[in-house]
C-alpha cells in the first residue's frame, strides 16, 4: 500500500479526525485567548515633577498609553508634585477621570501631592499615602498682570485687550478657580471627606496620616499596596507590573526624560521669575531659613 494511501486511510479514521479537530479547537482557543485576552498588567506611572505644559504632556501620553493598552487593566500613578500651572493640572484631572471610566486608577503619594499635584490625585479612585507625605495645599496662587495703561504708541481695540483684565477682576476670578478646585475635589472624594470646604480653603498641607484621617487620602501604605489594591479593583488574580514610561521609551513612543526628585523641583523649577502671569495650583516650598 502506498504511503499516500496509508496516510489517507489514517486521516479517514474518525478518531484521528476528531483528535485533529480537538487540537485545532484547542489551538484556536489559545490563539484567541492570547489575542483577545492578553495577560493582565498593572501599569505604574511615575510623576515626580512640577506640572508645566511639557511635563503634563508627558504624563498625558502615559495615561493614554495605559488607557489604550488592553493588557493594562489598572493604573497606579505615583505622584510627587507641588502642582504647577492651573490649566495643565486641570487637564490631568480630566484625563484621569476619563481613564477611570475604563480602568481603576489608584494614586500613590510618596512625598508630596500639593495643590495641582493633589488636584490630579483627587481624580483617582483611591489615594494611598505614606505617613510622612505632604498632601493638600488646595488653592490658587497667581502673578497678577500689570496695571493697565494707555500710551500713544500702542493701540488696542478694547480696554483689556492688552492686559486681559483688571487686577481686581483677576483676583476675583482666582477665587472662582479656587471654588472650582474645591468642587472637583468634592466631586470625587464626596462622602469620604471629613473636612469642610472652608477648612480646605485655608490651603494647608497635611501629613499623610492626617490626610487619611481627614479623608483627603484613603489609606496609608506603599507602592505595593497601591498596586495590589488597583489589581483587586480590576478583579485581577495574577498580573504583571509594567513601568509605562520605560516600556514607551523602549518602543520609541516616549522620549526619555530625566526624572527630577523632590525637592529639586521645589527649589529650581518653582522660582517666581520664571512664571508667566496667570494662575497656578502650586505649592512654593519656602527655602530653609528664608524670609517670610
Amino acid at each position, binding site marked *: 500500500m502506498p504511503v499516500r494511501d496509508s496516510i489517507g486511510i489514517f486521516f479517514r479514521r*474518525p478518531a484521528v479526525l*476528531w483528535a485533529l*479537530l*480537538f487540537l485545532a*479547537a*484547542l489551538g*484556536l*482557543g*489559545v490563539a*484567541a*485567548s*492570547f489575542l*483577545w*485576552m492578553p*495577560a*493582565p498588567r498593572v501599569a505604574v506611572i511615575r510623576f515626580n515633577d512640577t506640572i508645566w505644559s511639557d511635563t503634563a504632556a508627558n504624563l498625558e501620553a502615559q495615561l493614554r498609553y495605559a488607557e489604550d493598552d488592553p493588557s493594562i487593566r489598572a493604573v497606579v500613578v505615583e505622584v510627587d508634585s507641588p502642582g504647577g500651572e492651573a490649566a495643565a493640572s486641570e487637564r490631568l484631572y480630566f484625563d484621569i*477621570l476619563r481613564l*477611570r*471610566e*475604563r*480602568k*481603576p486608577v489608584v494614586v500613590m503619594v510618596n512625598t508630596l501631592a500639593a495643590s495641582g499635584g493633589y488636584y490630579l490625585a483627587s481624580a483617582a479612585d483611591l489615594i494611598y499615602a505614606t505617613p510622612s507625605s505632604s498632601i493638600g495645599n488646595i488653592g490658587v496662587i497667581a502673578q497678577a498682570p500689570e496695571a493697565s495703561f494707555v500710551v500713544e504708541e500702542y493701540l488696542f481695540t478694547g480696554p483689556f485687550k492688552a492686559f486681559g483684565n483688571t487686577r*481686581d*477682576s483677576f*483676583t*476675583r*476670578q*482666582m*477665587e*472662582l478657580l479656587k*471654588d*472650582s478646585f474645591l*468642587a*472637583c475635589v*468634592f*466631586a*470625587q472624594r*464626596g462622602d469620604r471627606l471629613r473636612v469642610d470646604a*472652608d*477648612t480646605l*480653603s*485655608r490651603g494647608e498641607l497635611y501629613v499623610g496620616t492626617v490626610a487619611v484621617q481627614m479623608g483627603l487620602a484613603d489609606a496609608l501604605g506603599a507602592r505595593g499596596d497601591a498596586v495590589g489594591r488597583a489589581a*483587586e*479593583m*480590576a*478583579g*485581577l*488574580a*495574577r*498580573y504583571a507590573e509594567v513601568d509605562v514610561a520605560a516600556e514607551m521609551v523602549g518602543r520609541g513612543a516616549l522620549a526619555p526624560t530625566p526624572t527630577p526628585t523632590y525637592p529639586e523641583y521645589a527649589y529650581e523649577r518653582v522660582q517666581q521669575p520664571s512664571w508667566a502671569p496667570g494662575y497656578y495650583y502650586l505649592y512654593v516650598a519656602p527655602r530653609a531659613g528664608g*524670609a*517670610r
Partner: protein
Amino acid sequence: MKGRRTLGLLIPLLLLVLAAVPAARFLWYYRGMPGPRDVPQPDLSRLAVPTPGAGAYVDRPAVGRGLVLVDRAHENLYSATELSVLTARLTARGLTVRELAAGDDLEQALRPASALIVVAPGRAFTPQEIAAVRRFVDRGGRALLVADPTRYTVLYDDYGEAAFADTAVLINPLATPFGLSFEDDYLYNVVRHEGNYQNILLRDFAAGALTAGLAEVAFYATHSIHVAGGGLIVADADTHSSTDELGGELAVAALDGTGKVLLLGDLTFMTSPYAGVLDNGRLVANVADFLAAAERRYGLADFPYFFGDEVALVPSGGSPLGAGPIADSGALQAALQAADRRTVVRAAADPARDNLFVGVFSDTAAVADALEAAGIAVQAVEAEEGFSYTLTISGTGAVDGTDLALFLLQQGGDQTNLTLLADRGETMPEAVQRLTEGNFSGCLALSETLLLCALGEGRGGWDGGGDDGGGEDGAGDGAGILVVSDDELYMTTDCSVGAYYYELFLYADYTVELWSVYDQGNPTLEDLRQHVAVFWVAGTCAGVVPSAENAETLRSYVAGGGRLLLEGAYIGTDWGGSDFYTEVCRAEYLGNGELLDLAVADAGHPLAQGWAKEQTLTLVDGGGADQPDVVGALAGAAVVLARGPTSAEPGTPAVIAYEEGDARVVYAAFPLFSLSEEDLDTLIRNAAAWLVD
C-alpha cells in the same frame, strides 16, 4: 445516522474546547468581572465670580479749615494716587494737604498742622520725631497711622543680613505711646470674604463718629491692632490672625484713649476702586471728618499758625512809628505773609481780626485788657536813668523786667491775640526773632501761652534746657535732661524705643532733649554739660555699648561733676576692668547670666522711693536681653536693685548708684526697658529727681 449523532456530540465538544482555553485563562488571571465604572463628574456650572457690593455714598462735607501733613519723608511705601481718595475728601472739607518731603523737619512741619497722616513708612522715625508727634497730639493735633501687611521693606540686622519686615514694625513706635500697636500679621476669613480670603468683611462697629452710617465695610489685607478696651472696627469670629490663628475680637481700626490717634490696619480699602465697595467710601469720609475735627491748641512756638487768615498788627505807643518799630513790624509781617496770613496795620485792636500787639513795657495801654486778663501788671520803677519795669504775674510774683520780653498768647471764641512786649526798643529785634523762629530756648515757660525770655547778654538763660515753649514744666522746674539714644541700628526701630520711653516719662516734669547717636553722631562733652543730667540709653538693643569715644566723653563728664544715668546689658562685657567701667560705673564685671527679676536692695535710697524693702520686680519679656552682665559694686557705690531670686546670681547688683562731689551716677546693668511700665516710671522719675536735685 450514527455519524450524524456523533457529529452532534462532537461539535459542542469542540466548541467547549475552543471556549475552555479563554475561560481557563480568564479564571487564571481574574477573580471576576469588574462591574461598570461610575465616575462622577464635577459640576462647575453653578460657580460664579464673586462680585463686590457697590457703595452708594455721596460725600456732602462741612467745610472747615486746617492743614493736614502727609508723611512722605520716611520712604513711605505707597503712591500718591493711593491716597487720592482720602486727600480729595480732605480738600473737600476745606483742609490743606501738604506733604512732608524727605529731609524736612517733622517737628517744624507740624507747627502749622492740625492733623498728621503717616502711611506705611519704610524708614524708622527718630526719637525726636516720635516725641514731636506725641507733643503734637498732646496739643490737640490728630494723627492717622496706617499700616498695611502688603507693604514690605528691607531691614538689616547687626551682620548686614537683609530681612523683610512690614511697615507695622516701623510705624509702631509712633503708635505705642498712645497704647496702640499694629500686630505683625494679616487677617483672613475663609468662610465669608470679599473675593479673597484676605479681604475681610466687617460689620462690628463701636459707636462713634468714625463709624456713623456704616453697615459693612471691606478691608483688603489688614493688620490686626493691639488695643486695650476694644477696637473701633472689629472682625467677626470667623476671621483669624495669620500669626496665631486665633479668631474673634480682632480690631482692624482703633482709636487711642484720647480719641485723637486713629490706627487703620489697611490702606487698600481707601484706594480706588475699593473705596467704592460697600460702605468703604463712607468710612473714608468719616476718617476725613475725624482729621478735620482736630482742635489744635497752639503754643507760642507755633507762631504764626495759630492766627486766622487775617491778622491786625498793632504797634503800641501813641507816638509816630520810628525806624525800629517799623523794622520789627516788617519782620513780623513777613513771617505772617510767609504763612499765608494777610496783615493789616492798626493803631488799636481790631475786633474783626486776630491781633498781634507789639510794644514795650513803657506803653501797655493798648494791651491793658489782655495783660489784666492774664493776671499781669507792669509797673514802672524810677531808676537812675529813666525807668525800669517790674512785672507782677499772678501766681508767680514779681519779675524784674530789665532785658526781658513777654510773650502772651490768648485764644478765645473766634479770636486769637498775641502780645509781645520787650523792655525797650533795643531788645525788640531779638524778641521778634525768637518769635518768628519759634525759638524759646532758655525762656521761662509759665504756661503754654505765657513766656518770659531774657534778651541780650545782660542775663543768662533760665536753665540749660532747650524747651520750645510748649512744655508744661512742673516738678523739674524746667531742668534740662539730655536723653541719649545710643542703641539704634541701621534702619531698625525697636532700638530707639528705650530712649523714647524715658523721654515720655520725663516730658511732663522736665525739659527733655533727645539725642540720637545714629542720626546726630556722638555728643561732645559740651553737649552733655549743657544739661543738668544725662540719661545714656544703650540697653534696648542687645550688644550695643558706648563706643570708646563716648566712653571717654562720659568719663570726663562724670569726672567734672556730671549727673548720669547709664544703662546697658553688656557694658561690663565690653568694658569690664577698664578705667571707664571702674570710674564711671563703679562696678566690676563678673560674667553673664539670665536676669528675670529684681529685688529692692536698698529701700531707703532715693532711687527706690515707692518700692518696699526686698520687693521683687518682675521683668517683662524675659528681661529683654539674653544673659546680661553680672556685676559687683565697687566701694562707695550703693546697690539699689539686685538680681532677683529667679535670676542667675541672685543678690548681685543690678542697679548701682553713687555720688562723689557734684557727680551722681546711676548704672543699670540691664535694659531698663524690660521693667514693667509702672516700675520703669518709678525708677526713671526717681532717678531724674535724684540726679537733678
